[in-house]
């Protein structure tokens, strides 16, 4: 399983989206998120975007006030994950138009659906923006 979890966290450390691809109990999640957020948010722009934590490698990237953190296993290609994060942001950008933290807060379900289109079972399955957004747009038209 390449990707183990995806987190979106604002710069106050509040979780805005959490998607796990392996089962952790609520307590474990909370502890993990706390540790990771503390580690990553303390880092500066000049430092690299990879942090090793427990048995994960965390690849993160900051967009405005939002941090995108992806936990991967040690085999994963860090740069590819960075590209994946960027793709995710671009996709959301295209959908919401200049995406911001509030968009994700108020459309959490949609964000989850986009992720589901892109990642299944920890594997990246779709990298084309229009393919990712297709089902969602269809749904919006219908409703």
């Amino acid at each position: 399983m390449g990707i183990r979890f995806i987190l979106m966290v604002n710069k106050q450390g509040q979780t805005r989206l959490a998607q796990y691809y392996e089962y952790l109990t609520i307590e474990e999640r909370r502890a993990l998120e706390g540790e990771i957020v503390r580690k990553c948010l303390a880092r500066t722009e000049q430092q690299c975007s990879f942090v090793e934590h427990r048995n994960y490698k965390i690849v993160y990237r900051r967009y405005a006030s939002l941090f995108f953190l992806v936990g991967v296993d040690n085999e994963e290609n860090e740069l590819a994950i960075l590209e994946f994060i960027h793709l995710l942001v671009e996709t959301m950008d295209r959908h919401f138009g200049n995406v911001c933290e509030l968009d994700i807060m108020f459309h959490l379900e949609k964000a989850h659906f986009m992720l589901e289109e892109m990642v299944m079972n920890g594997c990246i399955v779709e990298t084309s923006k229009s393919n990712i957004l297709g089902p969602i747009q269809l749904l919006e038209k219908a409703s």
Partner: protein
Amino acid sequence: MAGGPSLMDSLFQRSLEDLIKGLRLHNLAAGTAAGTPESSTFLSKSIDEVRREIKSTDQQTKTTALQKLTYLHSLYAIDMSWAAFHAIELSSSTIFNSKRTGYLAASISFNSSTDVILLLTHQLRKDLNSGNPHEVSLALQTLSSICTPDLARDLTPELFTLLNSNKGFIKKKAIATVLRVFELYPDSVRVCFKRLVENLENADVGIVSAIVGVFCELANKEPRSYLPLAPEFYRILVDSRNNWVLIKVLKIFAKLVPLEPRLGKRVVEPICEHLRRTGAKSLAFECIRTIVCSLTQHELAVKLAAEKIREFLTEDDPNLKYLGLQALAAIAPKSLNAVVENKEVVIKSLSDEDVNIKFEALRLVMAMVSEDNVAEICRVLINYALKSDPEFCNEILGSILSTCSRNYYETIVDFDWYVSLLGEMARVPHCQKGEEIENQLVDIGMRVRDVRPEVVHVGRDLLIDPALLGNPFIHRILSAAAWVSGEYVEFCKNPFELMEALLQPRTNLLPPSVRAVYIQSAFKVLTFAAYFYFYPEEALAASISGVGESVHNGWCEQSSDSVSGQTVTFSEPDEGFNPRMLHQPQKDASGNDGKKMISDLEQVSSCSVKMGHFTKDCLVGMVNLVESTLRPMAGSHEVEIQDRVKNVLGLIELIRQEIHGCLVPKEEENDRGELKACEIVRVMHDAFSEELGPVSLSAQGRVPLPDGLELKENLSDLEAICGDFRIPVLSSFSLEKPRSLEKDVVTVSDQQNEEECEPSSESTSLLTEHRKRHGIYYLPSEKKEKVPNDYPPANDLSMQDKVNDEVDYLVKLTEKSLVPKKKPIAKPRPVVVKLDDGDRIHINETLPELKEDLISDAVQEVLLGSQAVASSSRTDKSDKSSNRRSRKETFRPLESNADSTTVEIAELGNKNSRRIKHRTHGKERSHRSSKKATGESDRSDRPNSSHPHGKHKSRQRADGMENVAAESPVIPDFLL
């Protein structure tokens, strides 16, 4: 509200948006259910609302309630397991939006312990068969995230069908889901694997991307099974232009290549080509990683990779720099040149502002260490350590310590330098590596004889500095310093000064355990001093009866030139003065007498040196100092301290009598009463000058079991329970025991000495070589080993015979235990780690293997049993028969076509040629037959699989399989 929510509730239900706004208004920090009182009230009020609304019969109300709950669950960690049934209920809704909400809630909150999960099976099956692709897609997504073994088993037929879906995005998701299903229900491999393989040839990038991702995960666990697919992967590697796909394929090859070296020759060129061509750093990095991990025999490739790494390192981007350093670290063991070429960047990175980069750089620097540069590198690093923050400082110290002690200090040539470096580390302000430094100081003291004067010197410098006592992190180092000073007191230049250091007032800052070591060392120093005071004459006499000329000459020189003006001056040992060292074998050979003589001789030498200098006043002064300091501690509540203080005070009593009883003590040797007291001092001294050596970790295990003693029977259970505790005990064996059991040593040592000095006979090649070159830093291989000191002390004096009977045991024991240790430098800790790892790996390996075996067995069975499996189950896809049944049918065509094939498949053995023949045979047949049965679907899905073509393909695959099974030279041919 037993009857469900009222109409009012439905009408005025708070929407998800309202909820979110409310949460924001109450400023509730995400992830913390308990915020301010109002906010938690708001939260619990909202949850109550949800509980009420979710029971509504109105779909819309229910949906909104579940949406809100899902939101609260995923961001505020609210438990929603109680709503599992409602999620299932909504998933069967006809309104797509409600269905979606239901499935989302399920996929986020369900886990294997959700008991209602089986109720979802039917709905999932229905949706997987649905004509609406979006419903199918939803069901697949849900299945992939909440799959259980039961779901996997029940839904495998649907999944199999979907693997052939004509909608790309469904097929893709089915492929990704299959991975999860395989893990949970390995039998599904038999059904679905072949379709998975077929999709490798799909033209759709998305599908190939998904499929390659799946194989990458599978190969990660058990690469060997996928070797037959190498040709397909190779084709993708060469043809694909999609970086996502290429990265995954590279990962697969990184796993496969080590298993089949000839594969490396084939793929190295395309990989280098990608590396040269690509502008994408991610792909470039993956190529580099593949080369440095799996293709290191290919020099050109490694060279190219090194060039590219250099490019990474010179970039400003910290990400690339970090990865470049990582890649360098991976390449270091194979091509140190690449590291050395980039030495500057690496050293500079040590002061990078990013901790991660600093750590990587440090790792690399340590990889560059060799005998020639170890001193230089350590100097540089210590300077960095002094400047850097505590965390990194300790990281540096830690890696210096571990690198230098690696493989029994193999990089260290100049131990004097290393010991003084250890002393220096203790003074680095942030040093928290006390324990490791302690271990190494003691360890080196015990193992490397020639360095002892320096160890004592370093120890003294540490001990006399009162400032150090205030730093709790280095108490452990002080403990080691005190121990070596006491143990090797004969190398001490000024015992009086040492005694003062050991007893200085600030020692009350030390923890009791360390203090006990201090007192024990004071005890040794005092014994040593008293011995010299009482026995100068005897020592002199012994020198005349001389054991060896050279030794004798040695002390004469010594005595003539080493007396200085100090009150208590001890000779500094040099080559000539070290009878114990030079005559170890002789001592061993001559047994008790010889040994005694030699230790006497040694004392004489020192005595002769300082005769007339070490006066009664000095001894009395020392005794008084010790007594006045320790007397108050006799009532200490710490038993260790109390015990040792009592010992010292007892000795003082003895010496006192002696001193006061005789005005000129050395002349009254013949007096019986005094002799007795002196005798005790001498015995104690002899005992203390006995060597303490490291003990092999396996020593205990090699003691043969006496007949009739059934250890295992009674303790087997205990072992399982206590397994964890045993290792720490072992590791501290050689270090702690000698220190804490000195008293035993006193009584035991004489016998042990004889028993334990068995020359070791073998050595590992590397160490031998090192030893040849740097022999002077090693102990003679005949060095003595101290067996565990818990050897019953009571036996020694009274039961000589019995002890002698056991000599054989011990001889055998040490003989074996010496073998691995060979070199004086068998550091106990690495050995422990090895044992530890070994055990753990053992356990770990057996467990996952069992499970992986299921998958890889199935994979092999499918590959070997070929298409028959898949195709026949394709025929009965319509009836949802159990898997077992489909398997039975699978074998039928084979049975009829080729005699005994079934058996061979079942065996999965390795009778190559024959099996391959059958396999190919059976495969084509079954392929054909499958075509008949499912001709329709085949035609529609894969128009290119016309008959001859399909046949060809099946043969191809068979070839691939040969490779796997036989690892025969077929792969290169095929790839060509």
